[in-house]
């Protein structure tokens, strides 16, 4: 019985989400009285560093292929068997979301995604997870011996343990998946929305895509990602990948700034778990003010330049 953490590498570095997952895994292991193994697939990252966040052992694998869900699931399942892991922790990124169900099936494990709490093991193995696209939370009892937990990024503090992990490198061969990856296009220098700590989001109040430099300038000044409301993506002012809300992406940043977004129930669903919410809208009756911590009743075109200037300061 041990805890296995999938530590995600991107561009030769561990993601922040990987540190969160390792630190979360250590807390689960302490709860269960067991050890943590982190498994990393890929090159370049400093594996021993994961000891700092609570890993006892790190296994780095070179898999002969780029990411496909089945290849990674087979590789991680191999390590899970080797270390007799009963609980596997994965960050709920796009990669994690592809991997978790396939791995759960290989392990015969219970699966919970969008996990936002440590397990409560006083009766069963209960975790809290986001449901109804951010409108509610559920407490789910995972009743199989093996469990796969996909934890929501930016939901857990990264604890440090000041330890060094022992590192083992190995190469694994996995059966070819029948999938060919033809092209990978990564937007470099841009913060993925689901992992961003600060998100600046614009709605119809911005009046058109030509005004988005105001959102982008504020985001740049604050090191934030940019997002938008559904009408904005539906009108193609912004790409669909920026749409947050019930039928878009659900996010949980430390700070969410909504500019010119009224705050319809579907939009609030996707952002209401943000730690601090700022609403900027010229309509004092906008529903967003009821869901916000801070508000400015004012015109976006007058407010945003002031914020950009102050943020650059």
């Amino acid at each position: 019985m041990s805890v296995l953490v999938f530590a995600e590498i991107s561009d030769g570095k561990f993601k922040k989400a990987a540190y969160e997952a390792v630190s979360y895994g250590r807390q689960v292991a302490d709860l269960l009285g067991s050890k943590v193994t982190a498994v990393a697939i890929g090159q370049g990252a400093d594996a021993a560093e994961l000891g700092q966040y609570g890993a006892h052992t790190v296994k780095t694998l070179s898999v002969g292929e780029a990411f496909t869900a089945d290849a990674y699931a087979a590789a991680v399942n191999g390590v899970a068997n080797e270390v007799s892991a009963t609980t596997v922790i994965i960050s709920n990124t796009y990669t994690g979301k592809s991997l978790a169900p396939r791995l759960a099936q290989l392990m015969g494990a219970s699966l919970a995604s969008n996990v936002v709490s440590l397990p409560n093991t006083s009766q069963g193995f209960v975790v809290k997870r986001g449901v109804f696209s951010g409108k509610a939370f559920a407490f789910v009892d995972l009743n199989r011996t093996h469990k796969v937990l996909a934890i929501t990024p930016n939901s857990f503090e990264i604890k440090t343990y000041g330890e060094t992990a022992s590192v083992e490198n190995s190469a694994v061969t996995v059966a070819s998946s029948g999938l060919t990856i033809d092209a990978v296009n990564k937007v470099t220098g841009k913060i993925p929305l689901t992992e961003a700590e600060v998100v600046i989001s614009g709605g119809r109040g911005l009046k058109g895509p030509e005004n988005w430099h105001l959102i982008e300038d504020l985001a740049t000044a604050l090191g934030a990602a940019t997002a938008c409301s559904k009408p904005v993506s539906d009108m193609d002012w912004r790409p669909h990948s920026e749409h947050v809300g019930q039928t878009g992406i659900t996010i949980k940043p430390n700070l969410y700034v909504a500019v010119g977004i009224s705050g319809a129930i579907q939009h609030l669903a996707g952002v209401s778990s943000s730690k601090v919410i700022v609403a900027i809208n010229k309509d004092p009756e906008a529903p967003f003010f009821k869901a916000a911590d801070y508000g400015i009743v004012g015109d976006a075109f007058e407010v945003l330049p002031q914020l950009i200037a102050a943020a650059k300061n």
Partner: protein
Amino acid sequence: MTGMKILACISVVPDTTTKITFTENNTQFNTAGVQYILNPYDELAVTRGLEIAEANGGSLTIVHVGRADAEPVIRKALSMGANEAIRIDADPVDAQQVAEEIAKIANGYDLILTGRESIDYNGGAVCGLLGAMLGIPSINVVTRIDYAAGKFTFDRDIDGGRETVTCAGPCVASAQKELCEPRIPNMRGIMAARTKPLQVLAAQSAGGYSQYASFELPAPKSGVKLIDPSEAGKLIDILRNEAKVI
């Protein structure tokens, strides 16, 4: 590919405007007054599946794991143009139970489509589970599906970007926004859907791998603190020094 067979898996979810509440001491979702709809991502899966089937002389089958009260929504999917539907009669508790039921009828399809996630339980797991159960590739969150020269081509969202993958099939993919515009059924489709075959099969799986114990609503905000628009810059100071989030 003549005779291409596509399977679209659908779920039935509360309308996006639904105010979510719970009953029985927060252990049951309150269904009173709730309107149910075809899950928005599944609507995209059905639409794009139909477009590909129609272009290649194929057919599209709808499958739903759920109770009889889902049948109006299944008929809606038929009215969009699907050839036939299967309802597996169960009250599933989790994605694993849904996937096990679908896997039992999913052999022989060239392409299986799901939504990226259902907007009620947001598990996003059926695509990957089906792939693993059937031993075929699973491609999550696809924004493009094309079929040419014996291969499916997908664009899929990845962390911080997008990738293009090809697969001869069979494979399973989950639909993301941008895949297509959802098809609105026309009157002819609605009439035709009434008599299209809707087969009901008994459930076979032993049950789920998890159990929902209770629910909780997010804590309400304590009240908004307003900042004068003429001194908007002060907000940055507050976020830095009071809220400590930047």
